């Protein structure tokens, strides 16, 4: 790993970045293959996976990869994502957030309230998707469940996937919106100014204690 340049702070180590992108790529594959089987207008997306049967075969295995990879991220990020009163105050000022009036907002730690709620939304969705996905995994598991449970799981899987896709659309847009953020996950570093502006408490913590992981 190359040393960070002056005026740069390491936000994500190579391991974390790789972990994140395994989750991200599997998410994209899952969303495409899942939407292909969700709405007839998108069935053509099955061509990306080698046809309908291959889409049906691959989707649950990719799902297992995503859940396992995310579990590692979850352990790594858990303590940084606990909601504090200042995060709720930040959430209440959503108008200032979307209007880029960051100077009016309470100071933010490593993550802001929105990022933290996103983190827990993803966890809830993945738990629902994992549990319902096992029930509707016809080849191996469906025979162990009564039909009403399978029907409920089919619906739950669709609902949780819908919430997760919308959540990730917001996550991706936040990366495009707040310039200098994507670098944190591709190169691992952010500028001093970025950290000072968006995550001041974290910036001070890192400034005092030197470089953080």
């Amino acid at each position, binding site marked *: 790993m190359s040393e960070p340049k002056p005026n740069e702070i390491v936000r994500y180590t190579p391991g974390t970045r790789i972990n994140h992108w395994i989750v991200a790529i599997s998410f994209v594959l899952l969303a495409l293959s899942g939407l292909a089987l969700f709405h007839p207008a998108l069935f053509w997306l099955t061509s990306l996976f080698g046809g309908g049967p291959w889409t049906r075969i691959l989707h649950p295995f990719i799902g297992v990869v995503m859940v396992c990879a995310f579990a590692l991220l979850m352990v790594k990020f858990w303590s940084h994502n606990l909601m504090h009163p200042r995060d709720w105050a930040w959430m209440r000022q959503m108008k200032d957030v979307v209007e880029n009036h*960051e100077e009016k907002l309470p100071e933010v730690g490593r993550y802001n309230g929105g990022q933290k709620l996103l983190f827990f939304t993803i966890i809830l969705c993945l738990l629902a998707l994992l549990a319902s996905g096992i029930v509707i995994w016809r080849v191996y598991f469906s025979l162990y469940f009564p039909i009403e449970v399978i029907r409920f799981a089919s619906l739950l899987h669709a609902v949780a996937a819908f919430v997760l896709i919308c959540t990730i659309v917001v996550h991706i847009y936040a990366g495009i919106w707040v310039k200098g953020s994507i670098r944190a996950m591709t190169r691992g570093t952010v500028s001093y100014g970025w950290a000072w502006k968006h995550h001041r408490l974290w910036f001070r913590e890192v400034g005092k204690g030197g470089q953080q992981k």
Partner: protein
Amino acid sequence: MALQSLDIVRRSATTLPEPQARGAHTGQVAKLIDVTKCIGCKACQVACMEWNDLRDEIGTCTGHYDNPADLSEHSWTLMRFTEYENPKGDLEWLIRKDGCMHCADPGCLKACPSPGAIVQYANGIVDFHEENCIGCGYCITGCPFNVPRISKQDKKAYKCTLCSDRVAVGLEPACVKTCPTGAIVFGDKEDMKQHAAERIEDLKSRGFDKAGLYDPAGVGGTHVMYVLHHADQPMLYADLPENPKISAMVGLWKGVSKPLALFAIAATAFVGFLHYIGIGPNETDEHDEEAARRELEKTS
């Protein structure tokens, strides 16, 4: 069975209507199974195997007359035997020929995500086109009668075709042709209802005052109907559902949620786009870098 001589009126996972100009103007077909005339000989099972070239595994005795024990990708019809002790204390042997009911509103077709894997013909037959089947098993999730089965070998779904290939060329289904007691008859659905009415009248005159026709309205009626001695208790006949309909959960999953969810996802992305155009990105400039440097110098 891709048969051009049978017009398709509904196709799974297809949002636009099928060609409608031609239709079954002479009426839709139906198979009527008179449970009161059935002797349980299983000739229908044999005829089904023979016509459709199906050979199920030879199973083991499970202690009752059902053989094989359940429907499978190789057994599209099956006699289900029930010993029922009626209120008078007499034993009745209720034998129901199980298989696809060919619903007018088929739950399998509604649930199927693969375009054209399940079709409904103008004459009412619901048919699986295995070459389009992806093996997800949603048809099983959607079926109110627990009929489709996924093959363990090829992972495709199979069920009774109502011998769509025979019906297309003016023949009756194989099970109908072979039935030695005339318990299974086939023809125009209205004619079959009329025939059933005569049978029910006869049964009532012989003490079965609850005799009736099983043509459940919850699935829009079926193209396989039963004459039952105890039409008030269909559950007696190996759990024939009393009021089958497509589950509300399947209806929601495969109904409004599909277009609404896609719209909402697209709308979320579009709102993001509008935000970028209207308010713009949140950028870090030289002032922020400067402020950050000053703050670091202060603390160190």
